């Protein structure tokens, strides 16, 4: 009468009742979860700056989802391209950094040592640097401090 059929245990795959029209190009969604994305965040910002800014300005014009589909596809493609390049060039340092983030509530301050290794590898192989926008003039950014106030309690 009122039996619950769990959708995850269905025998046939899910068929989308309202798919996008065929004239819209299909782009695969980004499969990276939160920790790898947070680790790569500043490099996505450096690599995909124009596409991200285009998308944000487009969204400012109108929040209708259909208005910014093209810019959104570009953003997804650029981020997926960067994650691919990161995995090709600096896989070990990348994995170490996002594993460290996962063990520390996804906060940057306890993971400066793996972050330094990742930044060095990415700069050498891909030419991207991490810059924190909004650092006051003349002060070192927090990720380059040699003796920070907020740090791990154990070495």
């Amino acid at each position, binding site marked *: 009468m009122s039996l619950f059929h769990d959708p995850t245990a269905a025998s046939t795959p*899910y068929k989308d009742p309202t798919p996008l029209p065929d004239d819209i190009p299909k782009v695969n*969604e*980004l499969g990276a*979860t*939160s920790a790898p*994305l947070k680790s790569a965040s500043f490099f996505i910002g450096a690599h995909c700056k124009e596409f991200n800014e285009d998308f944000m300005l487009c969204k400012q014009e109108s929040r209708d989802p259909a208005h910014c589909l093209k810019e959104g596809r570009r953003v997804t493609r650029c981020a997926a391209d960067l*994650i691919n390049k990161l*995995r090709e060039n600096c896989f070990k340092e990348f994995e170490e950094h996002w594993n460290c983030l996962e*063990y520390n*509530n996804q906060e940057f301050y306890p993971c400066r040592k793996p972050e330094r290794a990742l930044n060095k590898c990415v700069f050498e192989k891909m030419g991207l640097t991490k810059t924190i926008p909004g650092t006051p003039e003349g002060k070192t950014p927090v990720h380059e401090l040699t003796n920070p106030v907020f740090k791990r309690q154990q070495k």
Partner: protein
Amino acid sequence: MPVPWEALIPFGLLTVMFGAAGTLLNTSKRLQNQGKGPRYNIDAWDEMMMDRDRRLTGHPRGQRSDPVAPDDFSTSSMWYTERTR
């Protein structure tokens, strides 16, 4: 001279009881979070990202760094069922 060792039994009991309770709690939290400590100070952004992680990997603390998502990821969002007004 006889040492009053019976007087130290309550201290020992308290230490063991607190230690056992604390260890059990820590183990329980780690078992729920795939061997890592629990997340704290979670805001709406973190909740949204952890829901996305659950859709991608099956567990809110699961992580993967593949650039391509599984096929059912694009249609598994709760956005389809949300009311817009």
